[in-house]
């Protein structure tokens, strides 16, 4: 009986999982199609779809700045609220109206990018396992976002605000928590007091502040969080929203009058989509949707649980506390602790398995993760149990020994990125890593200067969209001599190609590989001393610049 039940629940989980996977796959396809179009217009580095979280922050700042300006002129009284907003909108049409409209439209924009961000992270399966934290905090933040927006509309005290006030109060009254129904405050004009109004004003500053606090908490567990979108996108969206504000200013819908019922209302559907449902169905159903929806979203990371690949492991005899893994980890999973093994170093690296996604970028940063045969065992100071450098070395040799010709290429790709099986052909070896930045530059040195292949191609996710956030940036900077560990200057850059492609880029990738191999044929075999001058070894603060690999796609 127990076995039967377990089997049934297993089936249930399997079916549920299959359903989720179908949703994810179709969602991923939808995003890929749209992002492809945007990649053509914006290019993969500034494609807004790869910066949705940062855009949310940006719109928040626009809303805050415009809100501060509005606050200067806003009067917190029943009479004064509507009047002061009308003054801003009509008398100050050149500035106050723009500020008001920006305030409204930027907050609508924030809802759009936040929901897209949520959908995208779901579709890319970046919400389970270690990343449950960001997911859960994000879902909770939605309530603060909506409360902020709805509260803002309330303050205008026009007919829309009246509608919102009455319906919100009646919605909350469904919960058995109030001694006296909240809706009594909006019975008629006599019932509303200026003081309640001041409370609303206070809430509309307080709740957004909590939203901001929540946003900070939301990004705590990732390193170097991007909270600013690319400058071009900031300018573009701000300009577009300002033009909209100038041409189509936000208007109030007539003063509130609680002695008359609101008949027709023009709601802001971004924030108020649920409100008509409260009328059409019932407050209870609306709570079911809102509350139930939130709960469902929140348990998603455990439907099913994700068993993360084994976390990175530190080998103390090989770790001197240089801190490069700590600097490179995208998930703040590596910290430096005081030494425990008695060696005369100050610190040692330590991995928190609860935060490690097994991306391997730490190994790519470790100076001891070199493939050159050595006296001691081939273990790096920080290594991945499932794909140790020992294994990467073996696979590198296996992939290259049978290659023949003068255009042999070893392709290192990444598991979340484009599928590489289509590239395997005569003269091309393929090896997949958890992330392209899991590869120490010394492996590239090893392959080229020890004649294992004529060229190395690194294939990763689209430039702005590394699945592990920083892999593409770190790889480019290591190749360009801007981030440790630098690729040795003596390695000829014309024998290195980088290809940062979205899943839709298979054809371009094949073309790039063919072109690369053609140039390699022209070059002839590697000869020591025939390389270009090494790049400047001085640390540069130019982040995000392209690598100086000769062949760059994306």
């Amino acid at each position, binding site marked *: 009986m127990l076995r039967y039940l377990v089997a049934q629940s297993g089936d249930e989980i399997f079916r549920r999982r299959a359903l989720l996977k179908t949703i994810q796959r179709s969602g991923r396809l939808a995003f890929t199609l749209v992002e492809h*179009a*945007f990649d*053509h*217009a*914006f*290019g993969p580095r500034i494609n807004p779809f790869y910066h949705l979280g940062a855009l949310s922050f940006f719109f928040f700042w626009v809303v805050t700045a415009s809100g501060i300006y509005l606050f200067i002129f806003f009067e917190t009284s029943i009479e004064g609220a509507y009047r002061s907003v009308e003054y801003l909108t009509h008398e100050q049409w050149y500035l106050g109206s723009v500020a008001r409209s920006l305030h*409204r*439209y930027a907050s*609508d*924009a924030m809802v*759009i990018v936040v929901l897209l961000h949520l959908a995208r992270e779901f579709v890319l399966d970046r919400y389970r396992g270690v990343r449950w934290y960001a997911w859960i905090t994000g879902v909770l933040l939605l309530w603060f976002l909506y409360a902020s927006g709805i509260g803002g509309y309330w303050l205008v005290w026009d007919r829309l605000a009246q*509608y919102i006030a009455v*319906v919100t109060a*009646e919605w909350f*009254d469904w919960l058995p928590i109030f*001694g*006296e*129904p909240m*809706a*009594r405050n909006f*019975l*008629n004009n*006599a019932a509303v007091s200026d003081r309640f109004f001041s409370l609303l004003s206070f809430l509309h500053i307080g709740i957004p502040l909590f939203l901001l606090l929540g946003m900070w908490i939301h990004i705590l567990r990732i390193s170097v969080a991007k909270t600013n979108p690319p400058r071009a996108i900031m300018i*573009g*969206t701000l*300009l*577009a*929203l300002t*033009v*909209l504000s100038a041409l*189509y200013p*936000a208007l109030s819908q007539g003063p509130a009058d*609680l*002695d*008359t*019922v*609101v*008949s*027709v*209302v*023009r*709601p*802001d*559907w*971004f924030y108020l989509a649920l409100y*008509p449902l409260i*009328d059409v169905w019932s407050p209870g159903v609306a709570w079911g949707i809102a509350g139930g929806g939130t709960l469902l979203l929140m348990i998603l990371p455990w439907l099913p649980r994700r068993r993360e690949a084994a976390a990175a492991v530190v080998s103390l005899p090989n770790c001197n506390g240089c801190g490069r893994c700590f600097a490179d980890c995208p998930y703040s999973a590596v910290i430096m602790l005081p030494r425990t093994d008695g060696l005369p170093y100050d610190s040692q690296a330590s991995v928190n398995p609860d935060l490690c996604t097994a991306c391997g970028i730490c190994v790519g940063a470790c100076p001891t993760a070199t493939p050159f045969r050595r006296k001691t065992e081939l273990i790096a100071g920080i290594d991945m149990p499932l794909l140790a450098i020992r294994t990467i070395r073996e696979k590198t040799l296996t992939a290259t020994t049978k290659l023949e010709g003068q255009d042999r290429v070893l392709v290192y790709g990444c598991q979340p990125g484009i599928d590489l099986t289509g590239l395997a052909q005569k003269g091309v070896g393929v090896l997949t890593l958890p992330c392209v930045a899991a590869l120490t530059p010394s492996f590239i040195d090893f392959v080229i200067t020890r004649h294992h292949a004529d060229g190395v191609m690194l294939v990763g996710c689209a430039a702005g969209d590394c699945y592990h956030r920083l892999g593409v940036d770190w790889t480019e900077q290591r190749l360009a001599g801007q981030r440790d560990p630098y690729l040795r200057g003596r390695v000829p850059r014309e024998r290195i190609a980088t290809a940062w492609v979205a899943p839709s880029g298979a054809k371009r990738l094949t073309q790039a590989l063919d072109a690369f191999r053609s140039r390699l044929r022209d070059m002839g075999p590697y000869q020591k001393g025939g390389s270009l001058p090494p790049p400047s070894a001085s640390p540069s603060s130019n982040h995000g610049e392209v690598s100086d690999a000769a062949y760059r796609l994306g």
Partner: protein
Amino acid sequence: MLKKIMRYSGQGLFYGLFVSVIGYFSVAPAYVHFPADQALIKVSFSHAGQPLEECRVRTAEELEKLPPNMRVPVVCGRERSPVKFELELDGELLYRAELPPAGLSRDGASTVYQRFAVPAGRYRLRTRLNDSVRVPDFNYTQETDVTVVPGQVFVVDFNAHTGGFVFK
């Protein structure tokens, strides 16, 4: 050069689409929350029912037993009666309820908030309320002719201090 123009046009197109969606859905489509030709009667009051038991005077012995700072001569029970309420329009019963007192000890006020959409026009309105189980029938009654215009909010309130129902 052409490529650049194409790129910027593409970007402009997407920005335009983005703000158009925002501009449109921030105020449209309109939604009819309440029919334009009807009026709204809101019944809402907060009234504490009478205590279930009569207040009584403590005897001398009872007072002796109490500590000196707690010798209150008159004691009333905490629990209150539920409030019975009826609303009739033109002789037809529109709403009837027995409103329990709020709170764990059932000693708070009884509250009600109900909305009724009615066609605009003239009605005979009768409201009745009973706030004590010890009184057999309704101890507050009011009847009046009322005319409501479309969109009007007509409030039925109750305030014991002013003597009964308040119509606004």
